[in-house]
Every structure is written in C-alpha cells, then in structure tokens.
C-alpha cells in the first residue's frame, strides 16, 4: 500500500534482538535461569517492539493530509485501516518472528517449543498491531499518553496467553487451547478493532 524503504524491515528486527540481549546482560548469564525466562522475555520484547513500531502509523498521514484522502476515497474506511495495519505488520511483525527464532537459540529454548512460539507470536503480534493502531489513532497529534495507557493493559491477556502456550510446550503439555483462544481474540478483534480505529481517527477531525 505504501512504498517503504528497506530500513523499515530491518530496524524492528535489530531493536528486538537488542532488547533480547538486554536480559542476559541485566539479569544473569546463567543458562538454566535464562531458559526459564526465555518465553517471557521473547514475548515482552515482541510486544514492545511491535507497539513501538506501530505507534506512528497514522501520525504522518494525519499531519500531511493523506488521511483526509483516505476517508474521501470510495472504499470503506475500515477495510483501508485493516489493509494499512496488515501491511505494517508484514513489514515489522514478520522480521520479529525471524528474530525470535534466533533469540530462542541464544536463550537456550528447546527446539520443541519453537512451533508454538511462532504460532502464538503470529497471532499475538498481529493482535498487538491492531491494538497499537487504536492507540495511535487516539493519541494522534498528542503525546503518547493515551497510546501507552490504553494499549499496554489490553495487551496483558495476549502476553499471558502467549507465554502460557510456550511454557506448556516446554513442559510437553497441550498448548492448542491457548492458541485457540488467541485465534478467537483475533477473529473478534479484526472487525471490531478496525471499526473502533476508524472512529478514533475521525475523533481527531472534530
């Protein structure tokens, strides 16, 4: 949808890796310890980087008037919002998935937990992008306060579910339940959050 440069893809990836490497540095480089932390650490880093990446999704378009054209075009606006978030997730969320593979090696995660981690991250980061879009829309032209307050608390269920899925995979338990719940959240979230985002953007026009 929008033309982007290659640095867009790489920066969230590097951000993610650096945040991941913060943990062993700040906490302890011990292997067993790190392994027990790993799912949580990867999830926290993924949430933070997808949030940080999406925060500015509308601000430039709003400032320079592109968002006006967006609402004037004949396509339904919530589809456009969805397309925009999807594009954004493809260029930022996707590299994060790759990076999470690398970092699970660095943090000594067992290989068996990679599949649930990737699945839950796909669902989770996309949900986060949708949430982040609302936050971004609400805080357009203002400081990041609304974005931070609104988005982060809502992201806690995702965080819980995601880490639970990965941890239970590490313990060889069934994790499909968690993934199902996350899938359901996403299914409700896509139309609901897109519509709310449109409303949130329009608020800035009054």
């Amino acid at each position, binding site marked *: 949808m929008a033309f982007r*440069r*290659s*640095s867009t893809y*790489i*920066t969230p990836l*590097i951000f993610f*890796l*650096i945040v991941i*490497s913060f943990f*062993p*540095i700040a906490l302890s*480089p011990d*292997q067993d310890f*790190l392994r027990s932390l790993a799912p949580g650490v990867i999830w926290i880093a993924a949430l933070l980087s997808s949030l940080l990446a999406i925060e500015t999704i509308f601000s430039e378009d709003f400032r320079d008037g592109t968002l006006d054209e967006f609402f004037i075009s004949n396509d339904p606006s919530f589809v456009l919002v969805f397309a925009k978030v999807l594009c954004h997730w493809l260029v930022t969320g996707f590299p994060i998935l790759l990076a999470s593979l690398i970092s699970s*090696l*660095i943090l*000594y995660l067992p290989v068996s937990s990679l599949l649930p981690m990737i699945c839950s991250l796909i669902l989770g980061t996309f949900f986060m992008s949708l949430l982040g879009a609302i936050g971004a829309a609400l805080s357009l032209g203002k400081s990041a306060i609304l974005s931070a307050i609104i988005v982060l608390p809502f992201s806690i269920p995702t965080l819980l579910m995601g880490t639970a899925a990965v941890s239970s995979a590490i313990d060889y338990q069934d994790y499909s339940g968690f993934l199902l719940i996350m899938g359901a959240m996403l299914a409700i979230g896509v139309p609901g959050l897109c519509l709310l985002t449109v409303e949130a953007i329009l608020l800035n026009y009054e």
Partner: protein
Amino acid sequence: MGSPPLFFKWSSKILPWLLFISITVFIAGLLWGLFYSPTDYKQGDVYRIIYIHVPSAILGQSIFMFMAICGFITMVWRVKISGMLLKSAAPIGASFTLIALLTGSIWGKPTWGTWWVWDARLTSTLILFFIYAAIIGLHSSIDNKTKADRAISILSLAGIAIIPIIKKSVDWWQTLHQPSTFSLTSAPSMTPDMYQPLLLCFLGFYLIFALLLTMNLRAEVVIREKNRSWVSKQFLNLER
C-alpha cells in the same frame, strides 16, 4: 589524495598489486595455519579455527577505530573522501565481526559445549556488531549521502568512547573466554610454529581489508560522482 578523481587514478595503479599481494598472503597464511601447523595436544584439530577467529575478531575492532578516525576527519575538516572511507569500511568491519561471532560459536560448541554464553568478551563483540548495524542502518536511511556520512561520523565518534568501556567490563564479569595473550610488548605464550602462521594470517587479513576497502571506496566514489565529467571520461577510457 583528497580529491576523488585523484584517488581513483592512484588506486587504479596500485589495485592490481594490492590484489595480488593480499590474496597471496591471505591464502598462504590460511593454508599454513589450517593444514601445516601442529595439532594442539588438548583441543585437537578444532583449534585451527583460531587462524580465522582471532584475526577477524581483532580486525573487527581495528576497523572501528579506523572508522572513528575517519569520522573525526569528516566532522572537523569536512574531507569528502574520508566520509566515503568511513562508509565503505562499515560493512567490512561488520562482516569481520560477524565472522568472529560465527567462528567463535562454532569453536564454542566442541570446547565449551554450547554455541553461546553471555560472557564479557562475547557480549562486547555482539555489541560491537550492533553498533556496526546501527551505523549501516543509519547511513542507508539518509538519502543525501554527504549528509549520511556526517551522520555516521557522529555515531562512530560516540561509539569509540563506548568501546573501552565495553572492554573494561571484562574485569567485572565471569568469563569463559581466553583473556588476551597477544600483545606487542611481551613474548607470545604459544609455540612458535603455531604463532608464526597466526602472524601471517593477521597480515593477510589486514591486507584483505585494505583490498576490500579500496574496492568498496572506488565503487562508492564512482556512484557518488556519476554525474561528474571525470567519471564518464574514466569509463570511456577503460572501454577502449
């Protein structure tokens, strides 16, 4: 040498020599190290990775210092070519650092039983790699190239202040990795027949760096100045 056309002419002359010498020394060093030096009594043949690992690790750091010097020159005297040097050196330094990281990991698997540990030496190398990544990322995100050069000069200057601090952190940290055994002042603690090929490898790696740098810089110069008359003249001459 400060002006691009002059550099281009000058480098055209020495490039074939540099190409020849650096590749010979590089291959000779590696061959000597990898095939003709004695086997280590503790580690067996794995230790031969040292001939790639150590030179590239040390080069990763020297290139950064080189870049900081270029950065200073770019900032203070606005010499155009030193900015280009800085830009051309960054990916080479990043690659050497990456090679050090990779060979270190490969070496770590048999000797320490793991690909990666969070010790000081390893972590600081990783940070160095991140800083390289930041420099390259910043340069590619700025479209005006002279401006981008100045931007990464700022970054490499800030970076050089951080490097000794990272190095210092060895003292406060548990470490699995060898402390430095080489220095210019004291005698080596290795047997000479292991040490000599390593020295040759060092020389070879530095020469390869010089070669890659010259080639990168030539490409950079041509791309930057593609609209200038001397470039088109140059290539017309080459074709004939």
